Structure formats: C-alpha cells, structure tokens
C-alpha cells in the first residue's frame, strides 16, 4: 500500500462511508459477550432465554412474541434483527460500498437457489421452501425458481436477471447444468463467487483489499478443505475436485494440488500443516478428531473477524459484522435447542464465543 493511497483513504473514507462504519461499530457492540453466553447457558427454559435476550439488542424483536416460545421463533427473531440492520446499512450505502454489501449476500443467494432447486426436485411446497430461505439472499424472482423443470430452464428463466448469472454462464455449460450433481453445482458457483468477490475487493484496494483478502483467503481455504473432506470416497475425480477450489487463498496453488490428490484425513492433515497458519489449527486437533475441526475453524474465523475491527477505514467490518451475527444466531440456536431438548450438559460444546 502506498503512502498516498493510505493517506487519501484516511482523509476521504469518512466522507462517504464514515457514518455507516460508525453504525456498524455500534451494532458490533451489541453482540453477545462471553458473559452473556454464560448467563444464557444457565437458562432453564426458552422463556428464560427470551427474558435474557430481551435485555440485549434483540429486545425489540423479541418483545412482541407471544408465549410459548419455540427455537424457530427465537432464531427468526434474531435473524430479523440482522436483516433489519443489514437493510438499513444497504439503504444508506453509497458506491462502491453498496456493491460490497451486495457481494456479501451473494453467498446466501447461492444457498437459497440450491435450496429451492433441491426442494422442487423433491416436490416440496414452494411457500414452505421460501420460509426456509435466508432472508439476506432473497431476490425478486426467487419464487419462480420453482417453475423451472430442469437446470437449463432455471438459468434461462430466472437466474439471468440475478447477479449470479455470470457465475453460471462462465462456468457451466448447458450440458453441465443438466447432469450435474447439485452439491457440485453449489460449489462451482461458490468458487466463481469467491473468485469474483476477491477480485472485487482487490479492485477496491486499500485496507479493504488487505483485510478482506485475508478473510476471503481463509474462506476459500476452508471451502477447499471441506470439499476435499466431503469428497473422499465419492466418485468425484481429482480433476473435478481441483476445479472446485477457488483460485486464491493460502493453499493456492501448490497446497490445492496436493489436496486434490489427498485420499484420507491424515493426508489432508499433512497438506494443511505445511501452511503455517493452519498448522496451529491442526495442532489443536488430536489424532482422528475430525469432528472437532468445524468448531475450531469457526473459532479461527471468529478470531479473524474480530481482528478486522482493529483497523479503520475499510469495508471488512461490515462483512465481519454479518458473519459474527450469523455465528451468534447459530450459538443462540444451539443453546435454545440444548435447553429445549434437555441436553444442557452439551450446551458448552457448540458455542463459539466471540468476545
């Protein structure tokens, strides 16, 4: 980063984006802390959780919920808070921040598309599927996804209008669309999305480029790792596997080449440990404890997300806020489920503490 760019960023960032950065930092202060989680873990019923959350930023969203509570209503209320915050920021954002915020939600859009498509293939009711969609990744024509009978129609009818269109047209031919496994499609789209997002943040440059580059690298590597783990023992060929990895990240390109040929967990592990940041993660993992990996990766992600708040004048804080809120909602859901199913001894296992 040059001196000039740095200075101009410091001088000019606040002109357009200072207000929203202040807003998002305010929102961030409302995230639940470790003390909050400890208190939540002591709740006996969902009503207790509601009472406790009424005292937090979720208060206005929960106050008008009638008893008795369910886990889903609780999670819905929490999601409503995130969506309301996000909408507020999106409405107030100028360019290029508006595009950045949109980019952050494309991932959810991909998930929603995949959800609706699999749902229709299994002949589920559209309304029911729509309720399950992530509200951040909604777009106008999403309901009409169900109209499409096959993948080609899907693209031709609906997705052309969405920001996801280039990911389809550039990466998938119409033959692919017809015969491709839905999970492979999701990962192909996600790879295209990550590549696009990464080039976008580097286009924005400055601190945003640096911070988001780091975050996206981690995301890309995590996906590469998960793809490899999940594809062991399936008929996915090495070349196909290779194609699903994003074209950046700490593992790119040599680590990815090695991951592509890995055949069991220990091989993956040896590949990952060649990369210093991941060595620390894997060293926390005992031999054969692959289940814990998810949680450790989440924890690592949360650590990185919180670090983004150490720097000023960049868009990473918005991405981080969204991710942290989502993690928090997952935590609340876990606690609520544990409380509802009387599994309180396991409640600490699933929480990823933020602060």
């Amino acid at each position, binding site marked *: 980063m040059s001196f000039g760019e740095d200075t101009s960023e410091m001088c000019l960032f606040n002109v357009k984006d200072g207000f929203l950065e202040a807003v998002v930092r305010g929102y961030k202060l409302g995230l639940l802390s470790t003390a909050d989680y400890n208190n939540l873990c002591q709740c006996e019923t969902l009503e207790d959780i509601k009472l406790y959350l009424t005292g937090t930023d979720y208060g206005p969203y929960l106050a008008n919920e009638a008893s008795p509570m369910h886990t889903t209503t609780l999670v819905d209320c929490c999601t409503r808070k995130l969506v309301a915050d996000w909408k507020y920021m999106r409405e107030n954002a100028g360019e290029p921040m508006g595009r950045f915020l949109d980019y952050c939600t494309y991932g959810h859009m991909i998930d929603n598309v995949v959800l609706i498509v699999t749902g229709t293939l299994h002949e589920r009711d559209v309304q029911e599927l729509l309720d399950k969609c992530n509200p951040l990744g909604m777009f106008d024509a999403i309901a009409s996804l169900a109209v499409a009978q096959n993948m080609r129609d899907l693209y*031709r009818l609906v997705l052309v209008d969405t920001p996801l269109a280039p990911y389809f047209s550039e990466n998938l031919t119409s033959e692919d669309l017809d015969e491709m496994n839905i999970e492979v499609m999701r990962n192909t789209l996600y790879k295209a999305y990550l590549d696009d997002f990464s080039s976008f943040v580097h286009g924005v440059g400055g601190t945003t480029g640096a911070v988001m580059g780091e975050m996206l690298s981690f995301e890309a590597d995590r996906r590469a790792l998960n793809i490899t783990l999940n594809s062991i023992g399936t008929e996915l060929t090495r070349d196909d596997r290779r194609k699903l990895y994003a074209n950046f990240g700490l593992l790119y390109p040599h680590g990815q080449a090695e991951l592509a040929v890995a055949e069991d967990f220990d091989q993956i592990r040896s590949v990952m440990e060649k990369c210093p940041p991941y060595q620390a993660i894997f060293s926390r993992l005992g031999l054969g404890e692959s289940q814990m990996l998810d949680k450790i990766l989440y924890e690592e992600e949360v650590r990185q997300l919180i670090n983004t708040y150490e720097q000023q004048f960049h868009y990473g804080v918005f991405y981080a806020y969204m991710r942290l809120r989502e993690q928090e909602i997952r935590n609340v859901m876990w606690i609520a489920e544990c409380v509802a199913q009387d599994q309180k001894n396991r409640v600490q296992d699933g929480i990823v503490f933020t602060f």
Partner: protein
Amino acid sequence: MELFRSEEMQLCQLMIPAEAAHDTVAALGEVGMLQFKDLNAERTAFQRTYANEIKRCDEMARQLRFFTTEVEKAGIPVAPRLSSEGNLDFDALEAKLAQLESELSELNGNSDRLHRSHNELLELQLVLERASSFFEDARSSADRAQRETAAAAFDSATPDIGAPLLESAQAFEPKAVQLGFTAGTVPVEKLAPFERLLFRSTRGNMFLKFTPVGSVADPATGERQEKAVFVVFFAGERARQKILKICEAFAANRYPFPDDLSRQRQMNAEVNGRLRELHTTLEAGDRLREGVLQAIALNLDGWSVQVRREKATYHTLNKLSVDVTRKVLVAEAWVPVAAKGRVRDALRLAALRAASVMGTVFQPMITYEPPPTYHQTSKFTSAFQGIVDAYGIARYREANPGVFTIITFPFLFAVMFGDIGHGILMLMFALLLVLREKKMAKQDLGDILGMMFGGRYIILLMSVFSIYTGFVYNEIFSVVTTFFGRTRFACATDGSLTDPVAMMMDHSLCPSAFKTGLEMQTTGSPFAFGVDPAWHGTRTELQYLNSLKMKMSIVLGVVQMNAGIILSYFNQRYFADTLSTLCEFIPQMIFLNALFGYLCILILLKWATGSTADLYHTLIYMFLNPGDVDCGGACPENKMFPGQAGLQVFLLLAAFVSVPIMLLPKPLILKKRHEKRTQQSASYGLLSPEENAFRFQRYSDEESVGGGEAAAGHTRAPAQTSGAHAGGGHGDGHGEEFDFGEVMVHQMIHTIEFVLGAVSNTASYLRLWALSLAHSQLSAVFYDRVLMGQIQGGGSPFAIVVAFYVFTCATLGVLMVMESLSAFLHALRLHWVEFQNKFYHGDGYQFAPFSFETIDQEPL
C-alpha cells in the same frame, strides 16, 4: 437556599416481611423518594426471585401493546386513565387480558377471513369488468381488421407487400386451435418481471394483456396495493402448468373467468349479490369488534399504568436480597433525610393495609459510598440546573453553581445580545411558551421546539436581560432611542447644536467639534441611563463602544471568577478543609486580584474620574518596568493616584509570592500528616475522645483537619481516590495509599492551570465584547444598508417592500436564531469553563428514585 447544596442523603436498610413486600414496595413507589441499591448484581435477570412475575408482566405488556395497536387501527380514542374498572388485582387482570386477547384474536381471525373473501370478490368483480372489456376490444378490433383487410383485398387484387402475412392469413381462416387463457390480478410493481418471465418460459408463445386498476386491498395481507388486472393467453397444457406456477410465484391471484358472454353476466350478478351479503355480515362483525375494542379502550390507559407499575415494582423487588428463611426481604436504599418522615408514614400505612404481624424495619446504615446528588428543582429552576448537570452532576453536597446560573447565565447572554427590539421579540416568544405551558406540556412538540419549551424560563430571563442591556447600549433594532431624554452633548460654541451627524455633514456649523470635540452642556449630569445618543452614527462610535464593552467584559469576568473562587471557599469550609483554604483559596484570591482585580479598579477609577490614562500601557509596564508608572515622566497622564507605583510593586510581589504558596505547602503537609498517621498506627494507642465520638461527619474530599477522621459518621462517605485528593482513605485512616509523587503532580497541574487560567480566562471574557460588537454591527448593517438604504435612497415602493422583507428575514433568521444561538453557546462556555473550573468538581451521580410518577411517563 435549598438549591445551593444537594439534599442530605442517608443509606437506609429496610427489612420487609415477605408477605407484605409487594405492597410495601408499591407504596414506596408512590412516595418516589427511594433509590434502591441492586443487592443481586451478580445474578442474571432470569435467576432473580421475581423473574416469573416479570415474565408475566412482559406478557401482559405485550397484550396491552397489541390492544393499543388494534384500538389505534380502529381509530377509537383512548380514554384518559383510571376508570372504574382500573383497580383489578394482578391475577385478575392477567386473566382478563388473556381472555380479551383470545376474544380479540378470534374476532380478528373472523373478520380477516370475511375481509379476505370480500377482497377476493372485489378483485373478481374488477377482473370480470376489465377482462370482458379486453375481449370486447379484441372482438371489435378483430372485426374491424377483418373488414379492413377484406376491403383492402377488394380494392387491390395484389396484396400490399407491407401487410402482415399472418394477420391476413388469420383473418381469412379463423384458427381452429382453442387458445387457453387465465385472468387475475398482480401487483403493478411486479408486472414487468412477471411479463418477462411469462415470455421466457413460453418462449414468447403467449399474449399478456393488462390494465392497472389502482389501489386494491390484497386478499392475503389486507393491505392496499397498486394492482393490475391481467389476462394471459397461451396454447397448450404445458404452458398452462408453467403459467400457473409463475402466477403463484408472483403472488398473482387468478380468478375463474368464463369466456362466454352470458355466463360472464351471470357471474357478475352472482358476485354482486354475494358482495352485498358479505357487506352486511362484515358490518355486523365490525360492529361487534368495535364494541369489544371500545370496552378495551375505556380501560386501556388504566391497565397500562397498572402493568407498568407492577413491572417496576417487581424489578425493584428483584433488587432486594432474600433472607435464607425467605421470611424477610432486605433492601438498601438512599433516602433524602427530609423525606424520611414520608417514607415512614408510607411504610406504616402499608403494614396496616397488609395486616402483617411485623411492620417493616427502617433504619439508617453506615456506609462509605458517596451518596447520590439530589437537587430539588421547580419547573423554573430545573432548566438552569440542567445547564449545570449537562457539564457534570455535582458531587454530594458541594456548592451548586446552578443557583447563580439562574441570573448570571441570562445576564451574560444579554451582554452579547443587547438590543431592546430583539429582546422584545424574544420576550414575546418566551411568553408564548410560558403562558401556554399547561397546554404545550401535554403535546409532543418534536425535537427542537421541545428543547425550547424545556428552556422556556431561560429564554424568558434571557429576553428580559436583553431588553435591559439594550437600554444600556441604547439600541432598538440598532436604532438609537431617546427614552431617557436628549443627548447631553452639544457644540462647545453653540449649545443649541446637538446633532453630531449634522455637524459632520456641514463642517462650518461647529468647527470646534473637530478640534476639541463636543462638550457636555451641564457638567456632572451625564445621560441618565446607558450610552448617550450623541455617539450614534459618529465616526468615533465604534472606538467608544469597543472601549466601553471591552472594559465592561473584563470587570464582569473578574467579578464572576472571584465569585467562583469564593464558592470554592464555601466548599472548603463546609467540608472542614482548612488546609486548602490556606494553601489554595487565599493565594488564588491574592493572585487574581493583585493583577486583574487591580485592573478592574483602574477601569472603574478611569470611568469615574475621566482620566485619560492608557491602561494597556499601565498594565504592561507594571510587569516590564515595575515601579515606574508614568514612563519616567514622559506620560504623566498614566499616573492616576499618588503611591500608584509603590502599590503596583507590592501587588506584583504579592502575586509572585502566592504562586509557590499554591504549589508547595499542601502536598508537603499532607505527606507529613500521612507519615504521622502511619507512625501512630504502628503502635496501639488510646483513641482520642473526639476520634471515638459519634459525630456527624461531612463527606469530605480532602484528608482534612485531624479529628474525627476515623469516626464512622452515619453518612460518612469515603474520600474518593480521584483527582488531587490525597489518599483515598476509607475513613479508617490506616494503611491507605499515599503517593506523594501523584499528589505533587496534581498540585502542580492545578497551580499551572490556575495561574495561566487567570490570564487566559480573563481574556476569554472578551468574547462578551466581541459577540456584542458582532450583534450590533450585524443589526446595523441590516437596518442601515438594507432597509434604510432603500427608503432613503428613494427606492420604489416595491423595492422598499422587498427590502423590508429581506430585513425581516435577516433579523429573524440571522439575529434572532443564529446570533442568539451563538450567544447562548458562549454564555454556556463562560459558565462551564471560566466560572465552574474555579470550584466545581461535578463528579457526583444523580439521585434516581424508584417513583411511579416517572415510571408512568415511560413507554410500555
């Protein structure tokens, strides 16, 4: 002087029998004079004793909010509180609310269903109307086309090349394939994507016709939406399937639409009939619902108040610690000593009412915590106290600058805003607010007007003082007044010539005026009040006024700063801090008055005697060349009284000597005391009688004079460890931290701050002059250049009207709004910084009692 020091507070312990706890606390909320301490701070909301009751209250509050929105939606006015039924007990109210809620939601459900079918029928009616007109149009245009093409074919045997082939073909042989169609309504904003998707999915093999029908209630949500009626034609079953799905995806409501005209009419008639039927049902349902809502509205406010109070009561109960036997609840609360009697009465009454065997035990406690600050304010004083509180809440029982602010604040404002006319305008506004106070207090005034309303008495006093200073400056909208007679100045040679402007215009009138100046006609009887009108409009007006206002600013500033230092003495005396009096108050007084107090005396002397001494010169050479007043004889006019030189040397020395006195002795003496105390405590000794005495110990910030430090007075609070205060002892006097370095550094900072501040704060008061100058110059510009410029310059009547308009806008916008705001801010600054830094600690915390009166104001 009850505002001068905050109310005396006591920490009291209440032991409330469990069975009477709720009623007792509610009775105390009625009194509203107790600030309960949270004794369960480590427990979370849901672990507390009354968490369940809080949940029930929340549930009831939710129901009440639901009722409120429903009542508001129905447009029924909510009756003001406390009707006959307002006093249900908690459980009965809960049951009643739950029952009402289920009743209301059932009614809502019914009416929703009815409304949905009603809206559906309405939409169907629209579809029938509009769609049939499509068909009609299509039919007539088809007929026309057929006729035209037939005619064209007849006209020219060879068909026109430009004529569409398909159309003509169609026209000649009507298609055998029956086209399917479906009709319905769709929101207008979704129309474009809807059409696009239809087009894509059928590969263009469809025909959509639509017409917007305006705002229609949507059957699903009941909200009004801009909608359009559409008819889409398609061919084939697969297309039909797709189109149905697309309709579903776009929340387009489809309606059956018969293609045959007679059945359309029949259906239309049917729909109309059913609509009428539904209408009567709906009306009956709505009447029923309105009846229920009206019954609710009657009690809603009373219930809301009750629930709010219940919830606050339980929140307070949650702060009490529960005794192991669960028979007694223990509370700790701050009470103003003056209100203890009322609290006792309330407790006795509550115990009687609850008929419990044990009454509540109410006893004072010993604590080392600083008590909260509680100033009893009236509607008049509260805004002024607000100005002080915005800077910082006074420390417990320290001198409250709010008392003085009531007068000094509007006065300093007026010095900067002196104009009779502007003052009168502001007075009218303030009177409007004050006289309509009762009415306006009930309304929601919005941010800005609400703020002004809150400060209405400040504005009132500001305007009165502005009028007063306006008389002093002799200005009304920058025009000179003659309320106190004509000018006392006249031409020295011709006593009848008094108008300085006329003399300036025609030099031959009074030549002496330009050599020796005007003369007062009768010496010793100047203009009765304020500035002589003779100055107005002369070339020396500005110099004269500047000199006057500058000197006046300095005199006012030094007086106010002296007042601040004297207040610090009141604090020291009250907290029995003789050391600070000797080492801070006295040298500070000497320092300020030796330099600037002396300057003020010179100013007054100069005004009184008419001396022509150059005070700048005097003051500067007092430092540069002490002992020499008249520049070694070169400027004899500077010597104003005999012995001046000697006095100046003495004052200068006094000022210099007072600086080290401010700095050194206090930390050293504190250190000595501390050492002595630690020595004493090393060996056991008899306590001196007064140390043992139970005496009222004032809350002191300094480890002050010996004596009853160790005695635990019943409101004895600890010295806070903040700031320069030596040792934050907790009253025990033993083993407390004493860091000499820190104390010394603080003392140094304070000394430097005061010495430099004496100069810079005095200079800061010159803002009084600067703003007053800006104000009078601005108003003069608007009056002379804008208004008079047109009138005297012989402008056309139209131009004069325009000029008057501009003048009015500028007076209101620039002077009344912006200038008054800036004067307000500067007055605020002079109080917060220049005045309050002399004595005000402002590190207390506000008394926030548990009171139903404030709770009733909060939203549910």
